[in-house]
């Protein structure tokens, strides 16, 4: 099928999904099958769209149609196709998952939810393919508005509305910056067409303004650290199949926007652009994961991990920018590929994890890990898929997270080649050490999340009565788990795609970057340095090790297993004796107390019996310095200032007439001076 027809097909399927949901609003079951089914088909069409772009050899396809606003241009180049691929895969899985998951919402404005869901998919499709400034901003804001309504879908809880407000406010400010960046470019290039935006002649300082606006604008949507505050609020509030899409794909569209700017519109820039991106990236990754570790709400925890992973993605991108600025096209290619690989990986495993969290929520009706436990026995498949996702996000071999983190490590390792002197070495080594720290913290966090949620005994009645989720939900998760494995064990195909994506941009060269002559290794060879990644060998090593372990363990025949209760000093073990998530994170909370500033509150309930002691609860929370030092003062300051300024309208008629006189006099004076 020709690509433009495929595009129209995907577009049409999503539109149909919206319409069918609205038409069948009286019959939720039908809505569910119809609109989510159409969404699945649309996402599959998107995948084939992306695949055909790559199959055509990264050919850029442009087609346009007239719209009242002017020409709307759709452009499918390799960059868009790559993001479409990630979107298609995650979207397919999320839509299949939604068939099962969204049943919970049958009596809560179901048609609206299904319609918005399809509209959300549609808007992402548009964002990734539109190639005209105004239409892009419309699609961008459409995506925001639709997801805002999705976040606010369960408005029965006040907190959700607050989260939705914070979300739309932050992204609206971000969009303002994006619009500034675009308009500055457009006013220099005298065009609204993406393809021609780079032709504008701009001074270096103006380019830097565009860069900063794009970075902060898209960074807000991506959840880069000082602008991330909406993310841990909004993602948990949305229904889980939506959170999966938001965290998996929507924040990646911001990376897409940044890539468009940094690769295409601006081309290379001065070195400090890349360094700034690197600095923001490392802050996001370390603090993102630290805050994640302190969370007990499963979905908030995952949301903070999105901050972390966006940081890892930007480490690759930032390094790429530094290399480009220093005229090292091969290394730049490597770094950008590392970033993009992580984009894909994070899309896959984060969606998977959100779906897993959604499954837990679906069965137990709680997201609080302290209330969970023992689910691996009630929901074995969910547990397995969640474990795959957890291992992948922790960067463990042989899954996909490892590959992209490996590439990122390599890219950072070569950073001193671009930044000469001891400072470059220091910077590189600090970034590597902190990325290592991030990895270790992420592993800790997912040991906590997985262990406390799925292992040991249930900690609440909800967890006790949990049951495995419907097969559609499992199918969605299974698909993504497979993708995690596929992109981990066999990275060659993805690297091939990514070479196509980044090749051809100014200052980047991937020709001969990867040597795929041996089946088991991806070797890359730049003129300055090299590295080898051998995922199949790693798998082989682990497999061989497992084999050896089994051989050793079974040397003396199959062991007899004697069942015996866990030893708890003679007491019958109960779930209350289990290590809690709070306890698990305690050493790290204490070690990082200078940046987390944890506050322990002991809440004593003395109402029970004054003689037999009291009931004590420990409430621990950490300080979010970004809020404390930036947003809260800002909010208060703005509010106080606004309150103060409302004194302008003091209610006195005389004052008002005074304004008119004053302005008359001022304008008269100005005009005589003109």
């Amino acid at each position, binding site marked *: 099928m020709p690509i433009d027809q495929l595009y129209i097909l995907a577009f049409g399927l999503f539109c149909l999904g919206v319409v069918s949901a609205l038409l069948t609003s009286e019959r939720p079951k039908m809505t569910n099958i119809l609109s989510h089914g159409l969404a699945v088909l649309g996402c599959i069409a998107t995948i084939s769209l992306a695949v055909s772009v790559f199959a055509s050899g990264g050919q850029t396809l442009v087609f346009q149609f007239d719209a009242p606003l002017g020409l709307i241009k759709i452009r499918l180049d390799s960059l868009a196709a790559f993001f479409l691929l990630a979107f298609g895969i995650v979207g397919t899985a999320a839509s299949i998952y939604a068939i099962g998951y969204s049943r919970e919402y049958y009596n809560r404005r179901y048609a609206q939810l299904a319609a918005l869901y399809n509209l959300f998919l549609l808007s992402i499709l548009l964002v990734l393919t539109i190639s005209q400034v105004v239409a892009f901003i419309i699609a961008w804001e459409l995506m925001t508005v639709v997801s805002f309504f999705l976040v606010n879908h369960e408005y029965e809880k006040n907190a959700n509305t607050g989260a939705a407000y914070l979300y739309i406010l932050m992204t609206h400010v971000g969009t303002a910056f994006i619009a500034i960046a675009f308009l500055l470019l457009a006013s220099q290039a005298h065009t609204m067409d993406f393809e021609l935006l780079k032709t504008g002649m701009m001074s270096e300082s103006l380019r830097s303004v565009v860069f900063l606006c794009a970075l902060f604008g898209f960074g807000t949507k991506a959840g880069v650290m000082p602008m991330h505050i909406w993310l841990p609020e909004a993602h948990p509030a949305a229904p889980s199949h939506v959170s999966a899409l938001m965290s998996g794909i929507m924040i990646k569209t911001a990376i897409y926007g940044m890539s468009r700017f940094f690769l295409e519109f601006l081309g290379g820039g001065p070195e400090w652009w890349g360094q700034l991106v690197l600095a923001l990236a490392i802050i996001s990754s370390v603090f993102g994961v630290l805050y994640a570790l302190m969370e007990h709400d499963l979905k908030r925890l995952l949301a903070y991990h999105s901050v972390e992973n966006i940081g890892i993605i930007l480490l690759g991108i930032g390094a790429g920018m530094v290399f480009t600025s220093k005229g090292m096209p091969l290394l730049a290619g490597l770094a950008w590929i590392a970033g993009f690989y992580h984009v894909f990986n994070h899309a896959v495993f984060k969606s998977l994890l959100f779906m897993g969290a959604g499954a837990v929520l679906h069965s137990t009706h709680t997201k609080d890990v302290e209330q969970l436990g023992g689910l691996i026995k009630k929901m074995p498949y969910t547990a397995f898929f969640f474990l795959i996702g957890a291992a992948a996000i922790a960067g463990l071999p042989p899954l996909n997270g490892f590959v992209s983190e490996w590439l990122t490590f390599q890219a950072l390792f070569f950073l001193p080649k671009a930044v000469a002197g001891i400072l470059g070495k220091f910077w590189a080594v600090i970034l590597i050490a902190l990325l290592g720290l991030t990895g270790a913290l992420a592993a800790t966090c997912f040991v906590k999340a997985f262990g406390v949620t799925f292992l040991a005994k249930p900690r609440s009645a909800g967890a006790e009565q949990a049951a495995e989720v419907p097969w559609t939900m499992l199918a969605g998760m299974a698909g993504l788990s497979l993708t995690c494995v596929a992109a981990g064990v066999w990275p060659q195909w993805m690297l091939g795609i990514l070479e196509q994506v980044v090749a051809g941009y100014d200052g980047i060269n991937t020709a001969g970057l990867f040597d795929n002559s041996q089946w088991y290794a991806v070797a890359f060879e730049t003129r300055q340095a090299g590295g080898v990644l051998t995922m199949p060998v790693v798998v082989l090593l682990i497999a061989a090790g497992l084999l050896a372990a089994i051989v050793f363990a079974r040397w003396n025949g199959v062991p007899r297993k004697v069942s015996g209760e866990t030893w708890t000093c003679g007491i019958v073990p109960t779930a209350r004796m289990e290590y809690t998530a709070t306890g698990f994170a305690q050493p790290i909370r204490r070690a990082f107390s200078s940046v987390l500033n944890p506050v322990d509150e002991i809440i004593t309930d003395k109402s029970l019996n004054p003689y037999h002691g009291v009931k004590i609860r420990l409430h621990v929370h950490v300080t979010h310095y970004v809020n404390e030092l930036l947003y809260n003062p800002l909010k208060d300051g703005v509010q106080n200032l606004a309150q103060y300024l409302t004194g302008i*309208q003091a*209610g*006195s*008629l005389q004052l008002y*007439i005074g304004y008119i006189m004053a302005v008359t006099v001022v304008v008269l004076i100005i005009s005589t001076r003109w």
Partner: protein
Amino acid sequence: MELLTILLLLAAILQTRVSNLRLAINIVLVQSVIVAMACVIIGIQTHEVHMFIAALLTSAIKVGIIPFALYRLLPYLHEEREIVGREIVKANFSTFMTLLSIILSYGLISPNLPGVAVASTLPAAVSLTLIGLFFIMMRRQAVMQIIGLITMENGLYLFGLSITQGLPLIIEMGIFLDVLVAVVVLVILTYRLKLSLESTDTSLLKKLKG
């Protein structure tokens, strides 16, 4: 003409010292009479018929109906008066401002519009407008503010007279109608204010803010 101008400004200055409502209405009535006379004089000078009609309208509306309406209002407003010393700006200061605006008008505005036929009345007209504006700003009584508005309107009218011998008749009639309706509306509002607030002190009207 010169004499009329001086009388007019004198009336305006007098106005700033008045606290009694009835007296204030009287003064504004005198003002309107002077404006009407100015109309007549210009009519005689230029032999324009419509100036006489304008004079007639002025006397009918500004000397007749408007003061009549205000007088009718007065009985409802017993014991209402501008309390001297409680004005937003003290009486002396407001007189001073009035004088200042007169000086400013004469000093600044007349050189800027050269070649006007009746140049001497022009600064007077401007200063009358300014005085009206100041008057609204400095007084609290609703009726006083209405009077300020009428003063301003008089100034404007005189301004029109002095630079262009008045606007076309149809527009003038429209303006007269507007002034009339404005005063009627304001009188209704004042009456209602007295009913609801038991006072026509506009400094009480500060509830709507922010």
